[in-house]
């Protein structure tokens, strides 16, 4: 706890400067990149890295201003009204995922509303349990923090975007990007694995984030119910109780995950009793946390009823030790994080058979590979780019609200599940009596075998190219294939009392709004072995269709209420020759921009403004400061490690010298920002930069004009900025349906054909689609 406090303080101090520094950084970065391009990379990197480090120490990235080069100008031109995310040290895995989530229809709004709900509660709690003052904040469950930090990230992205739209000139030289620092910090709290600057697997991060947000939702839900039911009880329950629970959870998770989870249900009662004993002040937050954990666990609990005894015992142990642990919140956090993750993944644990199937499909193996990869990765630099429209946000929010308002808060809480979680059915049918048994399991993504690759735009050192022979459809049917149980190992049919032949098939029972397809790009066997040249990645082409229908794998293919047609809206690409290292970028298709516009025109303006205002204060106060703080500390610690690592890993593969340089640069220099830029520019720019630039030019020019006009309006925001907004929106509209490449802090425009080319196997490159995100479209 003490740690946290101190951090907070620091943060506050650092607060405002940071922002500015970002901007400047951007410039700087760009320059660097350009440099890199122009000259040999290695030297450039060194410089860049060194510089950033220094700067970081002070504030952040207030970079040493570099001479602007012609390249810079180009960039400026190509600057699009979407915000990137700075690379904070190999955090491209995170950036790519965050971008996807940000543009995931409805997600932003969900986060916002969740945050609101959470905040309301916090206030209530604080009121209730004022005694604890400081602790209150600290005790905030980490998942909730994640919610908060995500929210603040969204806010800053939105803000940045709108300010860019209204004021493009300000950014003429720079980059439009914001560092996802706070979020990263929270993530590290949640899972220590993400400390340091190692490379990680994007899919794991996605799962981690979703799991924790889900946990936060559960917490909120729990609280709601708790509040209703037992205000008094909650008072009675001392902090100790909650703490105990938390700690016990952590312990348990360490020991036996399944048990722990199963045990949660029971824990509660016990903890209550204990709490009574310890008559301390009630800590609402604590209770929240606890509740959240309970919920997650509960889902899995039901099955484990039998083991309860053991669990209880464990709990007891846990509780005894817990008090000691209370003092060190970070630890708890870490543990809890894991638990959360587990919770999200639980289904797998629950139903081994299905999972085994997954495994056979290569999912698990891929995971393994991925992990290895993450650990070893040394290269990605982080910057993020993002853009946002306030207007867009608003419109979306409204939409979301419309849909959600019906169910109100509850639905908001379930929105994650609604969005990402579907259900699979493992159906085993006896061929004799034709009875079948079903087992259901939730899924958040589906892992399909691939042989691999497609490529993304860029390119520097492409290794090998492959021709797409396989289609995604093929891959999914691999995933959902029908298996016959015949021969010696027949199925014992309960109805027949006999061993009979049977068919086992995996079907989608419920499909989520957004279906995430994880392409298992790694060889199932030697993860590090690539068929070609002994490299790790499996490079077999897989065609990425823009539209997807899950029809044939659904239990109710013709159900009227659910369309099983999907449309690609985001792709996370992994470029790199080996599993162990690489760079993630994200293509996202801009959608719903026009809707935003319309709304804006009408009355959204005010709302937008309000929102903005709201966000600003928030940012500047709590969150920002916090993360600044975190940032500083991180960067310090990180550097040491990174340097060491850099030497070790310096050999990353080749991705061309450029790639290497990237990685190295990141590691050593660590100021990921610069390094990002390098990577971006190196990779993607050569080929397409020019074309992009030209393409974008038109719109940009327009934008510029509008922006200028808008600029004025912005300043006097309160008044009649509508015109400006309109213009801004119109600018935005130009991007409707376009594909944007988010490469950390850099954002570039891609026409669909270019995108397709980038993803197609024909293009030579080592960069291949890794995660595909499809959203449901009505027929």
């Amino acid at each position, binding site marked *: 706890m003490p740690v946290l406090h101190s951090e907070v303080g620091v943060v506050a101090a650092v607060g405002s400067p940071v922002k500015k520094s970002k901007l400047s950084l951007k410039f700087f970065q760009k320059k660097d990149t350009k440099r890199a391009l122009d000259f040999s990379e290695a030297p450039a990197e060194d410089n860049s890295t060194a510089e950033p480090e220094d700067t970081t120490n002070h504030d952040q990235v207030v970079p040493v201003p570099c001479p602007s080069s012609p390249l810079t100008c180009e960039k400026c031109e190509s600057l699009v009204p979407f915000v990137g995310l700075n690379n904070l040290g190999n955090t491209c895995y995170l950036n790519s995922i965050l971008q996807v989530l940000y543009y995931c229809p409805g997600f932003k709004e969900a986060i916002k509303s969740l945050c609101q709900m959470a905040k309301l509660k916090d206030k209530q709690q604080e009121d209730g349990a004022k005694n604890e003052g400081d602790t209150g904040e600290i005790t905030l469950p980490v998942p909730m923090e994640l919610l908060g930090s995500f929210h603040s990230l969204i806010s800053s992205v939105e803000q940045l975007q709108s300010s860019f739209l209204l004021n493009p000139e300000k950014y003429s030289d720079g980059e439009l990007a914001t560092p996802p620092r706070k979020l990263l910090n929270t993530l590290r709290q949640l899972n220590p694995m993400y400390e340091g600057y190692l490379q990680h697997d994007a899919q794991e991060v996605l799962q981690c984030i979703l799991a924790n947000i889900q946990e936060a939702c559960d917490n909120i839900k729990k609280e709601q119910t708790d509040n209703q039911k037992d205000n008094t009880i909650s008072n009675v329950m001392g902090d100790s109780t909650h703490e105990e629970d938390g700690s016990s959870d952590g312990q348990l998770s360490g020991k036996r995950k399944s048990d722990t989870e199963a045990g949660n249900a029971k824990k509660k009662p016990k903890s209550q009793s204990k709490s009574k004993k310890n008559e301390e002040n009630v800590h609402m937050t604590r209770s929240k946390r606890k509740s959240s954990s309970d919920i997650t666990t509960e889902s899995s609990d039901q099955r484990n009823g039998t083991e309860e005894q053991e669990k209880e015992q464990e709990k007891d142990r846990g509780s005894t030790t817990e008090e000691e642990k209370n003092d060190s919140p970070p630890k708890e956090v870490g543990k809890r994080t894991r638990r959360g993750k587990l919770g999200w993944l639980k289904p797998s644990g629950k139903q081994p058979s299905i999972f085994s199937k997954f495994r056979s499909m290569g999912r698990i193996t891929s995971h393994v590979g991925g992990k290895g990869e993450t650990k070893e990765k040394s290269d990605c630099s982080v910057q993020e780019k993002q853009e946002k429209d306030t207007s867009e946000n608003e419109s979306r929010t409204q939409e979301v609200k419309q849909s959600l308002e019906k169910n109100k808060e509850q639905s908001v809480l379930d929105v994650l599940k609604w969005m990402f979680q579907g259900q699979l059915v493992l159906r085993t049918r006896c*061929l004799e*009596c*034709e009875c079948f048994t079903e087992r259901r399991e939730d899924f958040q993504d589906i892992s399909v075998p691939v042989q691999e690759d497609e490529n993304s735009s860029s390119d520097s050192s492409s290794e090998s190219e492959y021709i797409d022979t396989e289609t995604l459809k093929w891959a999914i049917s691999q995933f959902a294939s029908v298996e016959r149980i*015949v021969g*010696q190992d027949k199925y014992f049919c309960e109805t*027949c*009392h006999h061993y009979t*032949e049977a*068919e086992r098939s995996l079907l989608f029972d419920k499909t989520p709004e957004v279906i995430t397809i994880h392409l298992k790009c790694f060889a199932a066997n030697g993860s590090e072995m690539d068929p070609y040249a002994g490299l790790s990645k499996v490079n077999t082409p897989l065609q990425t269709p823009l539209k997807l229908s899950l029809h044939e794998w659904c239990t109710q293919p013709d159900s009227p209420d659910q369309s099983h047609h999907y449309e690609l809206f985001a792709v996370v690409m992994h470029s790199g020759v080996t599993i162990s290292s690489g760079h993630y970028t994200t293509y996202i298709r801009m959608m719903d921009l026009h809707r935003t516009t319309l709304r804006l025109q009408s009355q959204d303006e005010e709302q937008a403004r309000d929102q903005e205002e709201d966000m600003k204060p928030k940012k500047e106060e709590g969150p920002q400061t916090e993360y600044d703080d975190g940032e500083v500390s991180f960067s310090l610690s990180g550097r040491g490690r990174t340097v060491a690592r850099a030497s070790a890993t310096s050999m990353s593969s080749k991705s061309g010298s450029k790639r290497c340089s990237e990685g190295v640069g990141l590691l050593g220099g660590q100021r990921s920002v610069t390094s990002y830029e390098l990577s971006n520019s190196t990779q993607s720019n050569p080929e397409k930069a020019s074309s992009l630039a030209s393409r974008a030019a038109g719109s940009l020019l327009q934008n510029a004009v509008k922006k200028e006009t808008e600029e004025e309006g912005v300043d006097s925001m309160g008044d009649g900025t509508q015109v400006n907004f309109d213009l801004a929106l119109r600018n935005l509209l130009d991007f409707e349906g376009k594909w944007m490449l988010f490469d950390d802090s850099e954002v570039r425009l891609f026409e669909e054909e270019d995108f397709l080319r980038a993803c197609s196997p024909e293009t030579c490159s080592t960069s291949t689609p890794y995660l595909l995100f499809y959203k449901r479209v009505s027929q």
Partner: protein
Amino acid sequence: AGLDRQIFLWDVNTLTQDPYIASMEHHTDWVNDIILCCNGKTLISASSDTTVKVWNAHKGFCMSTLRTHKDYVKALAYAKDKELVASAGLDRQIFLWDVNTLTALTASNNTVTTSSLSGNKDSIYSLAMNQTGTVIISGSTEKVLRVWDPRTCAKLMKLKGHTDNVKSLLLNRDGTQCLSGSSDGTIRLWSLGQQRCIATYRVHDEGVWALQVNEAFTHIYTGGRDRKIYCTDLRNPDLRVLICEEKAPILTMELDKSADPPQAVWVSTTKSVVNKWPKHSIRSKDCASIVQSHILNDKRHILTKDSNNSVAFWDVLKACKGEDLGKVDFDEEIKKRFKMVYVPNWFSVDLKTGMLTITLDESDCFAAWVAAKDAGFTSPDGSDPKLNLGGLLLQALLEFWPRTHINPMEEEESELNHVNGEQESRIQKGNGYFQVPPHTPVIFGEAGGRTLFRLLCRDSGGETESMLLNETVPQWVIDITVDKNMPKFNKIPFYIQPHSSSGAKTLKKDRLSASDMLQVRKVMEHVYEKIINLDTESQTTSSSANDKLGEQEKEEDVAVIAEEKIELMCLDQVLDANMDLRTVKHFIWKSGGDLTLHYRQKST
């Protein structure tokens, strides 16, 4: 007299004329299909025991057994004009048999040559041949129909269209048209000349399992999982008539073709019932099958529930039914008969044939020992020997086998034994305690479940049977039945410590070991003698792993004293002197690791 065909899916083939004539039992698993040929003189059956059997239909005995298939035999087809029979099964093979050859088979001349049709890629579930034997069609999970010419064994064509397993097939007389019923719920009419489907009938809600057609090939009678039987006009599918609705999915149908349109249809369902429609002269053979079983804790008695919900109580050891309990609540009965006893598993139960089948496997068959007294037996000399349940049963089953009456020899494998008990009987050699009913079927099989040899208990004295037994009885069975080598007792390791409340100093941990059926009483004696009494002396020898405390002469009185003076506890629970160690371990200790017992002197 009209000829009707009945199939019991279970282990029984019953050929019925108007009253019941006979049942034929020789298969050890489901009978999947039967065919009457040679004008009703010969019956051929296909079973999930992977065999095809040829029967004399009039006398009801099995003439020969064909073991060419390697998996369940699912379907038969018959070409009347040529007396040609085809069999097919899950091993994807089709074999052609000449009935006249089959009927000429004897025990000594038992080689048959068959032609086989291969090419199927998946398990075959249905088969049809036209009357003249010019076309044969198979239906499989491959979802396509494959067509051969049985004369040349040449593949003719594949017919695609079904979306699921094909479970029933029919051919018209000249082999130009084919009807197929599939699990996808459709019936298709195919033209073999055009090699395509010329009509699809969607009559049923679920899979079509049974298919018949009238003599003129104009109306089809279909039944299936949805329990309904429809008659549909092939040329005008809208003209369909619901003939009846059964209570269970329909397995097969037979038309009374003495007139056209058929006057009656015989229907068999999964409920082991054969009904005749439309006259509603329902005649069902009462042959309820056992659908649920529970092994009681003593590992000797079994409770079963049959499809009529009647509950029965069986004695596995004696291979007979102990008691018919009627329609009582199964779970209640289980509770009622619960005993706090633990005996290791020594057999497993199989209900696939609708009868209780007890399987003894080498790995655990001899795991269970009981005291003769507990088992309700008294030995002649009045002692209380320990009996091995599996050993006893084996001895009883093979008691008529001459070889068990002498002494030497050997063999090996796993073994099955089939209990179909009703009566009980006298006492003879065997194990010296009891006998199993002489009609008890005994089946020797491979570990995988394939049957090697089946005979009735009483037949093992016959000459052929005895010879065959010599070939099939596995060594481990011989060991006990012929050589009378009793297996070793199971040992259970445990510790004895003074209870913490007694204040006595802890003994050094000596690991004791004893038969797992040692009663707590004996342990108490041991404690009393070796530890308490030795307290005065130097306790040197008490540590030895002394288990057979059970020389039960003088100790009678010691036991009494011991019981008065001390009590044994496990996990702070006082133990009943009559409990044995395995029960203690199972019900009280409950965890792995060595059992630890505590003793303390009674405070009196």
